[in-house]
């Protein structure tokens, strides 16, 4: 379960609040019941004491001590029952019901009600046998001496028992309620979020492919319908922006190219003039070289812009990276030989990806070109292509000068040069790796670099692997239009590759 998912968080939030509410509720119930039981016991005791006073103590004078004792023994027999009654006058015990049975409570050591604060009130004592007792003392003003004090007592054990049961019930039910509520809440959230999941998947598809598709509108009349509608409107605007961007880059490219064409043409005319000194001719040649460089920058920038804003439709055909790597290495052998660098391609089984053969080849060419450029004579450059899990991996490694660690995060930025002087001297414009990155991104892939000063550089390209099955080839053709054109391009490339192999009269080195 994803701990950050809305489902999880909302359910957690809801269950948290529910738990808090349940705790407050339980505490209130517990305290309420406790107070209620104590009060009702107090009332019972007070009633009892008053009752004894008004029925027995009052008539004691008229009917005599014997009658009183008899009546009291009859109604409040000693050594039985679950309550305790004691009648005293001036420190003399007139009657006591003695120890309580069931459960046994020893009462013989209970102090006589000497404290005036106890009179007509409740006080608590601990019996010798350990129980807590609640005692009500009622004072009856006797005409012949000190007031008669009637004590009525009971243990608070029953209350304790009830409260313990209540606590147990609350402790057991609260977690059960919470578990049931969280399961229910999670299910409810999942149910209401299911359309959102569908929307998300669709939105991702639309984002990755062309903008032509729209999200399914959920006709539920609620927030989700609004969400799907506004997402669609957002895609509309995005599409507009992209189209605008694409138009802009096409216009900009045209506007830049026209003056470049004119400059180039006029410089060329100039070189044809017979009266031009050798020195002037050299200058014009140099200017021509610069227009070349500028055209190249314009082209590269436009290529990156188109790739990044999705304006360029990538042709998706099955491409065998392995075969492509070995052909590219063959074609670039001489560049490495020139610098006495060994250039090797580790051969292996075919590794297929869906992609634009021209663009993918450009990735290889640019990476190899860089590797050769920044490797000192006597070094080595190697290419390895392999399938790893769901990824096709291509690694170009060299034993070159490496890239300082602080420069690593920027090597794929436009116009970034790790070593200004050196790379300018070797003729780069600082866009090669930016193009490589854009191409990788456009193929749903990525590129990463590992390097250190003087420890060589390792560039790794990861692309989604295409399992070589006949249905795949068809899929690639159907989904990614224009299919027949793409195929013919792919075939053209394959044909060229065959020719390459066949027409080699001698070895390449």
């Amino acid at each position, binding site marked *: 379960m994803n701990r950050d998912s809305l489902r999880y968080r909302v359910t957690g939030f809801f269950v948290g609040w529910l738990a808090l509410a349940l705790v407050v509720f339980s505490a209130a119930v517990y305290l309420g019941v406790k107070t209620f039981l104590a009060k009702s016991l107090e009332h019972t005791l007070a009633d009892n004491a008053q009752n004894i006073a008004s029925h027995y103590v009052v008539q004691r004078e008229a009917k005599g001590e014997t009658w009183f004792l008899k009546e009291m023994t009859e109604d409040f027999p000693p050594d039985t029952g679950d309550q305790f009654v004691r009648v005293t006058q001036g420190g003399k015990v007139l009657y006591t019901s003695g120890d309580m049975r069931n459960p046994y409570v020893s009462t013989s050591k209970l102090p006589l009600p000497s404290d005036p604060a106890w009179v007509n009130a409740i006080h608590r004592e601990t019996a010798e046998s350990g129980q807590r007792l609640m005692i009500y003392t009622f004072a009856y003003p006797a005409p012949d001496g000190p007031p008669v004090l009637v004590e009525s007592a009971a243990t608070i054990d029953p209350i304790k028992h009830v409260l313990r049961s209540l606590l147990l019930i609350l402790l057991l039910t609260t977690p059960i309620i919470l578990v049931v509520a969280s399961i229910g809440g999670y299910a409810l959230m999942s149910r209401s979020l299911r359309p959102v999941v569908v929307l998300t998947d669709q939105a991702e598809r639309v984002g990755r492919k062309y903008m032509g598709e729209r999200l399914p509108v959920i006709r539920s009349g609620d927030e989700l319908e609004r969400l799907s509608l506004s997402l669609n409107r957002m895609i509309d605007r995005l599409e507009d922006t992209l189209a605008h961007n694409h138009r802009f880059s*096409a216009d900009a*490219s*045209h506007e830049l*190219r*026209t003056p470049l*064409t*004119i*400059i*180039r*043409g*006029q*410089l*060329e*005319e100039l*070189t044809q003039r017979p009266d031009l000194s050798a020195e002037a*001719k050299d200058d*014009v*040649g*140099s*200017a*021509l*070289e610069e*227009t*070349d460089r500028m*055209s*190249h920058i314009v*082209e*590269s920038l*436009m*290529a990156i812009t*188109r790739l990044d804003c999705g304006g*360029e*439709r990538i*042709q998706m055909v099955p491409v065998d990276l392995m075969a492509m790597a070995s052909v*590219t290495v063959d*074609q670039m052998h*001489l*560049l490495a030989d020139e610098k006495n660098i060994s250039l090797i391609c580790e051969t292996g089984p075919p590794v297929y990806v869906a992609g634009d053969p*021209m*663009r993918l*080849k*450009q990735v*290889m*060419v*640019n990476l190899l*070109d860089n590797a050769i450029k920044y490797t000192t004579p006597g070094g080595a450059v190697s290419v390895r292509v392999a399938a790893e899990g769901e990824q096709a991996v291509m690694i170009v490694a060299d034993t070159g000068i490496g890239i300082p660690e602080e420069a690593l995060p920027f090597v794929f930025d436009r116009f970034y040069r790790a070593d200004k002087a050196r790379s300018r001297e070797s*003729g780069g414009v600082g866009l*090669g790796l930016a*193009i490589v990155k854009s191409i990788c991104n456009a193929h749903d892939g990525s590129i990463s670099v590992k390097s250190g000063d003087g420890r060589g550089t390792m560039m790794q390209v990861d692309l989604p692997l295409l399992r070589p099955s006949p249905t795949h080839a068809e899929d690639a053709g159907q989904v990614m239009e224009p299919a027949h*054109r793409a195929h013919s*391009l792919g075939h053209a*490339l394959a044909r*060229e590759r065959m020719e*390459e192999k066949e*027409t*080699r*009269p*001698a*070895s*390449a080195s």
Partner: protein
Amino acid sequence: MRILIIEDEPKVSELVKRGLVAERYAVDTVANGREGLEFTEVYSYDLIILDLMLPGLAGPEVLQRIRRTNTSVPVIALTARDSIDDKVQLFELGVDDYVTKPFAFAELLVRVKALLRRGPVSRSSTLRIGDLELDRLTQQVKRSGRRVDLTAKEYSLLEYLMQNAERVLSRNMIIEHVWDQSFDGITNIVDVYVRHLRSKVDDGYNSKMIHTVRGTGYVLRATGIEP
């Protein structure tokens, strides 16, 4: 040979016109698509150079209309766009060839000449420039009767240079012909191969055949005159 240039940028059409006139072609220029269409209806042209980014009637539209009445006239497109998708589209539209702005005039000229002599192209099995001889059947190269051993790439590079002898070929054109466009960015691959080829073809001979034209490209000449 009469050529029509449909291009809205006067300086560009003027440059191309001057260059083509110097090569003894008759050239008309028009600045918009509508006028261009009228010209093609009135006169008969051997070749049309068409800018695709035209104001008013756009280039592709002009081309389609031309193709409706005249399917045979060769058309070279001048395009600012260089994505592969566009190029494929161009050929589907009925363009015979294209150059991407900014182009070297030499490149345009080679394409013009290639299209104009398209009919009876002599693809004889042997190319002979000066004392250099290339046999397409056996893929053997000889200079002054002495055999020159070449790799596959050097062979196709030399074949391309010899086919277009006396014409300056830009690095761009060489890359497109001998490699493929993925090598666009790294033009020094051409320089390296030309250097190797030169050492095999020219070393030990007094008259050098392969020459560098600074800022433009390379040219193979029968005589050893510096350009």
